[in-house]
């Protein structure tokens, strides 16, 4: 009997020792699945097309940057990149300024029906974008905005992102003590000064979180960007440009890989340094869900 329990015990002990190893084996093999496609496309991006078709596993003969240069000039990736940067910067600045002001007024300026306004923001978040883009396209075309470079894309991104960002920022504003503002008001400080000199410095973290969240959306959006640039070839953002690129050079895999790497590697670097904010943007974003 006692040997029996001892045996059971030792089996259990053995199991416990096996578990951490099994755990790591699974995790490391999964990591390979996660990063191998990116590494493979990096390797392929240095090859010529002939090299690639001769043996897709072989290492490149020379580390040539021909594909990158070609993607940059012939594939216009550089131009698309600049377009995307302009769109992202203008959108993000507008979203944050507008949302900060709206959130501040909701949280601290005694606006009535705050609850209802927040509910409306939630509801807007739930609607699929498909229900918006057709009329929005018609409105923009009636107003003659579609010909303007960047503008139709930026306007939509700002309008779609402001409600969610406002809700998140309002929750952060709520945590700032009212007394701080009352004191400032008694000292005769104006509201704009209150907002930028007193409240915002306290909210750097929250604001960075929102910027990262909005950036992920603005940088990656394809459906509206594609729709809004149906009639023009100017000011295409990276996502749309990449699809055109695929249509043009679809079978030239090394060139495609160079284009993919030019987008993915900077993003990984950004992510490496800002991971904290990416994670907090996730939990902050979940407030709206």
């Amino acid at each position, binding site marked *: 009997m006692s040997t029996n329990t001892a045996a059971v015990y030792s089996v259990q002990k053995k199991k416990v020792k096996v578990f951490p190893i099994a755990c*790591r084996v699974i*995790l490391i093999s999964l990591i390979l699945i996660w990063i191998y496609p990116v590494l493979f496309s990096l390797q392929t991006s240095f090859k010529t097309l002939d090299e690639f078709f001769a043996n897709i596993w072989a290492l490149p003969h020379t580390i040539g940057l021909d594909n990158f240069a070609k993607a940059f000039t012939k594939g216009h990736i550089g131009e698309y990149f600049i377009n995307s940067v302009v769109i992202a910067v203008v959108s993000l600045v507008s979203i944050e300024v507008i949302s900060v*002001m709206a959130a501040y*007024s909701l949280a601290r300026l005694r606006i009535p029906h705050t609850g209802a306004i927040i509910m409306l923001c939630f509801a807007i978040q739930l609607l699929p974008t498909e229900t918006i883009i*057709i*009329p929005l396209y018609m409105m923009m075309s009636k107003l003659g905005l579609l010909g303007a470079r960047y503008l139709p894309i930026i306007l939509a991104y700002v*309008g779609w992102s402001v409600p969610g960002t406002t809700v998140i920022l309002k929750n952060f504003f709520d945590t700032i003590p009212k007394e701080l503002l009352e004191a400032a008001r008694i000292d005769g400080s104006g509201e704009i000064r209150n907002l930028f000199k007193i409240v915002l410095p306290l909210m750097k973290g929250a604001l960075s979180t929102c910027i990262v969240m909005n950036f992920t959306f603005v940088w990656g*959006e394809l459906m509206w960007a594609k*729709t809004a640039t149906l009639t023009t070839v100017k000011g295409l953002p990276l996502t749309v440009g990449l699809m055109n690129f695929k249509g043009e050079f679809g079978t030239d895999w090394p060139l495609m890989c160079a284009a993919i790497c030019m987008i993915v590697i900077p993003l990984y670097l950004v992510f490496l340094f800002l991971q904290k904010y990416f994670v907090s943007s996730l939990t902050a974003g979940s407030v709206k869900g």
Partner: protein
Amino acid sequence: MDLTAKAMTVNVNKKKKISSTRKLQLIGGLFGLPAIVIVTFATIIPVIWNVVLSFCNWDGVSAMSFNGIANFTKIFADRASMKAIGYSLIIALVATATAMVLGVGLSLLIYKVTKLEGAIYRFVFYSPVMLPLSVVGLLFTLVLATDEGLLNNILGLIGLKNLQNAWLAKKGMVLVVIGLVQGWRSSGTVMMLVYTGIIGLPADLFESSKLDGATYGQEVRHIILPLVKPTIQLALSMCVMSAFKTYDIVFSMTGGGPGDISKTAPLKIIEQAFMFNKYGLAAANSVIYAIIVIIILAVLRKGVGGDKYEY
């Protein structure tokens, strides 16, 4: 005399307070104005117009004409449109299931390794989330291509040639594959949320179970999963919401083809509107799609609710 003076000052104070509230509200209104203008322009008016448009017949050039629910009956009678919605549902289902299983599994595994290791794993598993869906799609067309694709070549290399497949060209298969890729990308979100949930659990819960000799499997089943259920639920609704955004990934991977076998609802809607200029029909289709998505979200929120534990 004294009393009236006091009453007067109180009154004045009150008035002052009211007027300062008014003033703040006025400033608040001004501060909120840009947000109201842009949100009204970019979402509220379009959404309302979309509903109006769905009851009208319009080719974008001639005058709009009201035609009742004809658009809706047309969509329900049109096999291609219904199929497109079905395709979207399949992709969303596969993507959500993949993301939840992978994400919860990963978080449970990562919880068991040391801190530094865990940070590396989390970085890697979360990284696809910040890549644009279209780039993920492009990367995976390279992985899944029939002849020169990575997966088929690996299968050939390890002697599993009979498993090689035209991943993105077979009916049914293409939807599952796209769903898997989308789920793979979202699994990072689930992993991160559930992991933060698990490390938020009080440590003494585990101490007593360790004393009782519980294995990790038992701990997971009886302590961790029931307690992080609210987080899992949250992750689930976030996943479902993103899983229905089937435009980007499908467009970048197959463009709806070959033929029509992966043409999901968003692609169909855009085609109806901007290729065939049937704006009313497309609007009706998008309204139906939105209603389906919202119903599913509501059912999930009600159905998966259940009991929550206090700790």
